[in-house]
């Protein structure tokens, strides 16, 4: 019976993988929106480990944290997308590599 339980570390590995994917996405994707999405991916990864730890510690506060993360994610989404729109208005592009007026 015990054997069939899933070790905590598995969850953590999964969450870590998601987080890493998010980072990778930020690094390799060109489209601003996609980059933003990979940030969301990172947050999801974090959420998973929160929940896993919550279960591990028997501490609900972990789960509560997840809610707040979601709220923040929503807020970020709203503002972020607005910013993206603003940028698109001024630059007519969604490619990060072309958003580099400010440099040096």
């Amino acid at each position, binding site marked *: 019976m015990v054997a069939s339980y899933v070790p905590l570390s598995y969850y953590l590995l999964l969450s870590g993988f998601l987080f890493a994917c*998010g980072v990778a996405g930020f690094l390799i994707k060109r489209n601003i929106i996609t980059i933003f999405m990979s*940030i969301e991916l990172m947050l999801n*990864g*974090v959420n998973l*480990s929160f929940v896993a730890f919550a279960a591990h510690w028997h501490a609900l506060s972990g789960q509560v944290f997840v809610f707040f*993360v979601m709220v923040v994610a929503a807020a970020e989404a709203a503002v972020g997308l607005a910013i993206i729109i*603003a940028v698109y208005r*001024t630059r007519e592009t969604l490619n990060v590599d072309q*958003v*580099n007026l400010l440099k040096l």
Partner: protein
Amino acid sequence: MIATHAPAFSQTLPQSADYIRILPEIILSVFGMIVMVLEPLLDEETGQRLLGLIALVGTLAALGATWFMAQAPGLAFWNMVQVDGFSVFFHVLIIAIAAVVILSSYEYMAVQRIRAGEYYALILFGAVGMALMSSAIELVLIFIALEISSISSYVLAGFRRHEASSAESSLKYFLLGSFATAFFLYGVALMFGATGSTNIDQIGRTLVTGPIPVLAFVAVAFMFVGLGFKVAAAPFHIWTPDVYEGAPAPVVGFMSTAPKAAAFAVLLRVVFVVNVHDIFWVIWISAALSMTLGNLGALVQSNVKRLLAYSSIAHAGYLLMAFAATPALGTSAAMFYTAAYAAMNLGAFAVVSHFANSGERYVTLEDYEGLGRSSPLLAATLTIFLLSLIGIPMTGGFFAKFYVFSAAVKANLIWLTIIGVLNSGVGAYYYLRIIVMMYMRESRKEVPVTRVPIPLGLALAACLAATLYLGIFPNSVLQYAQDSAWQLVQPGPPETPVSALVSTLSEPR
């Protein structure tokens, strides 16, 4: 190993004391809403004045409120916020910064044709977040507050959004900011995993007892990345110049002081309360890097805002030196530094924003040629701020650097100190360049010099007064900082490891 809250449902409601302990935040948000609501009802001109006035009143009221808050030290809202000298200090600082920024924005609003309502509201709300950061001891709250301050800064950075540069800076700030936030968050998660709690005090207590799990180390690392980004510490500083260059000048003044102060407050709590002293080396290196990169980067800049951005990186480096020092000294030194830095940097940016004129046309060094002749008073003021940034006696910057360095030396960080003093020597050069431009060159280009409006004058006067006061009578402020720092780190975790660690290398050889 029990969760923060009692499993039994306690039906107690918040006491009035709880509310008093967050009174400034409440007042700020209330005024923020008022501004927001009034904004559509007023036409442009009256809007500019009235809303600004209201916001100013709000900040002043909040400042008053901090006094009440200071009267009621202790925990509030079930260990969410802790009111102590430390948090009061940063409340006052942040709110004062907000007030000054509002004052110095008055003219800017009109010149840059910016919608005042949201602007002031955002500043007020942002102040709420930052103030909370300084008093929160619950990672959840810290996270939320951090986000509030960040998001408001993202938006403020993009306020001149018909300018491509402004939008871009906003985007950069936003994307990288949330990227860093994710790191911070992951750190929090791991910390929660390592200790089973998200309450800083509890974490600290857990970690002091028994061996520290490696997970905690990783967690601290991740949190440091997140916070390091916010305070623009190398190697996470890299966003700063671009964002500062693109963002509206007064906003930069705000961004470079208030959120930084708040982030430093959090960092202080994290580093010194969650005392994983091995972070020491990371901070050591980060400090050295920040100073060096910041100063070197600034040497050849021709855009004043960008130059000051690099200088802010360097100053973050100086500040971090304090973190590498022993808690009590380091904390007080860092607190003093944030205050002094806020005063002088706000002042400098106030001048810059006034001088930049509409569309921020005049922000290159050449534009400052002969300013000493065309408007001596303004030039003299800016000079004093710059001297303070260099760290010349009679100015706050001098004592700030001085305390940080002496804290470092006390902790036997001889080499870090030498790097620091060398940097402050080299750094003098680029501030001097501005002074040289203003006094020793004749203006070649026609730069209109508009007279300084009263609000800006007030702002400048305030900054000037603060800078000089801190430079001549640093005692009171420093005393306060030290007392509160003492409270903060009491019962200070054993300092021996740190000293032992550093004393090994810092033997003069």
